[in-house]
């Protein structure tokens, strides 16, 4: 299955699911919930954090977190 880490810069997707145990609650509170739209805005060198737009908010998360959020490309 695809995760946010598989997205290319500029691509949009719909969030499907994620493991509740390991995803920071803060991310959930910021609107990272199944059904919401996510866009990959910017990446960094050496596999650094990803710059995402989720639910209208700009959020940076580390790649290991992003790799746990399953998506469906739009």
């Amino acid at each position: 299955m695809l995760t946010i880490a598989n997205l290319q810069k500029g691509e949009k997707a719909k969030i499907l699911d994620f493991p509740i145990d390991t995803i920071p609650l803060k991310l959930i509170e910021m609107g990272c919930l199944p059904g919401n739209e996510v866009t990959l805005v910017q990446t960094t060198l050496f596999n650094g954090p990803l710059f995402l737009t989720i639910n209208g908010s700009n959020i940076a998360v580390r790649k290991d977190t992003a790799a746990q959020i399953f998506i469906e490309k739009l």
Partner: protein
Amino acid sequence: MSDTVIQVALIGNPNTGKTSLFNHLTGLNQKVGNYPGITVDKKTGTCKLSKTQKATILDLPGTYSLNASSADEKIAIDVLNDPNNENYPDVAVVVTDVEQLKRNLLIFTQVKDLHIPTILVINMADRMKPKGITIDIPQLEADLNTKIVVISSKLQTGISDVKEAILAYKSISTEVCIPAERFKQNTIKNPELLTSLTAAELKKVQHHETVIRYQFINNSLKNSYKIDKEKASDLQTKLDRIFTHKIFGYLIFGLLLLLIFQVIFEWSSVPMEFIDETFGALADWTKATLPAGMFTDLLAEGIIAGLGGIVIFIPQIAFLFLFIAILEESGYMSRVVFLMDKIMRRFGMSGKSVVPLISGAACAIPAIMATRNIESWKERLITILVTPFITCSARLPVYAILIALVIPSERVFWIFNWQGLTLMGLYVIGFAIALLSAYILHKTLKIESKSYFVVEMPKYKVPLFKNVALTVIEKTKTFVFEAGKIILAISIILWVLASVGVNDAFTNADKIVTTSIEENGFNEIQEVSLQNKMIRFEESLKEEASKSNKTLTAQDVNTAIAEKMPEFRQAVIEDEIAALKLENSALGTIGKAIEPAIKPLGYDWKIGIALVSSFAAREVFIGTLATIYSVGSEGDDEEGNTIIAKMQSEVHANSGKKVFTFASGISLLLFYAFAMQCMSTLAIVKRETNGWKWPMIQLIGMTIIAYVAGLIAFQFLK
């Protein structure tokens, strides 16, 4: 009409302009304290709502929810959940950003569910038109069952409406948004769940709760909140394409830092010179005006000198915090955090460590306090431990004086000179050792702590002057009061130690020196000192003559010198007495006691005294040397007695060799670069890490590194 004060709690997500509203409501009537037992700033202020009614406003930390997953959130819960809490509000004001209304309403629903009258403030109304946002306020007020105020903290509109809404808080419904039955379990209603459930269970409950709250929010906004997507401007996206670019992003950040430091040095040199001269003049005036004696000496040489040593750093510190505040307010700093995270992680830190590390270049105290937003304890601890390696303002005067002493001022290449390059090298070396020790700590510290990183990238905006100014005042105050009280205390203690004798040589110093000189005449070193005084006098004569266009014959000069001769001889004798007194004072005894330990580094007992006093705060080094070299020699001639000249002519008592050579100078520079010589920082580290363990490890580790570096430098270069 009532004469009781309304208690208001200000709540909201970060970056919603909550602090701007707080600043508008309270102005300068605010104070920052601490919640008992924890290191979260408690900001309160008073606001005049009407002629007769005042309100106390508590600015709760900016949080995304009340889910108690951070210290900030726990504070908010403690205050809002317990009617007996001294800060329990009569009315809550939830601040939201019109562009992020959906996400910002999450915490609103949580607060309202606590049966507290909750006013919803929708901020940044000025952004509605450009973004194509329309809100049907009466409809939304009905759906959320509360009072809504639309404001713009940028244009300062709607502030008085907020005050009116607070005044009328009793008319606001205290009904909940979401009936408790809709949740399986609810941590807002039943806070005991926060402690009784396991972490995994709790997270499930809170996740479920968040989903239901978002359903409610989506329903409430459906009818009233409209956004015309085509109007959404893409300036923000364009800015991000440049500022977070894989290559340009780093380049821009590097250039920005360079520019900032350049400007700080340029801007602060004038006020610093002014402060230096003012305090010098004040000390001289005190000595000249007040009757001579112990008290006058203490005032002039202990207290005024100590205060001057604190005030002189204010320009540099304030300017650096000005720039940091602008970068944070504009939203740029979050991009830096994003860019630097991966690099910092290699060294066991977080992207969020960048702010403390940069602040460390001003003063480690506010810098260490700025680590509070790093979620992972291990990353935060490492940042706290290595921040004092960054070259802070207090090291600069020490560097400046030592560099002027031992590094030639010749130019190399085109624009560089050795002195400037050395200073830059010291900055680099401080930063390098910070990273290196962070790496070692990262590999050796066995601390399990969840490292997660979720950073909101706020919109870019023009910083509000009021917010920037208040931040700068706040941080500078932290330095002045936290560091200042210790520096002042140490200055006084030092003066006392230098003025208390331990044996007969101290009490009879006058007699001993006078007799010895009467019997044996001046020794070699004293002759040199006398010669120097004559040469300097001759120079000043010539300078004066050239200024007033007079011709000066050799005859004139000789007559003038001969006239002054008894004065010079007396000055040499007085210096000798002062030196003998100091050698036999309590301070001198301490310096001599540690001399064997520091001899391998090339230092004598006088430097030993300065090192000991520096353990209170680095910059005391200069003050101590000033004390050591000038206590007793009153009536300074204009430039002859500057510390540098004194240090230059300083020789080892037994060998007559110069004390400050290239080798001992470099050794001292490295020692000051690495040593933990700041009691105020240790005190803050103790507070932030909740015990003496980490500050002690930091003190011992840094001192060892400093000693070894100094030792190696001296032994190789001598």
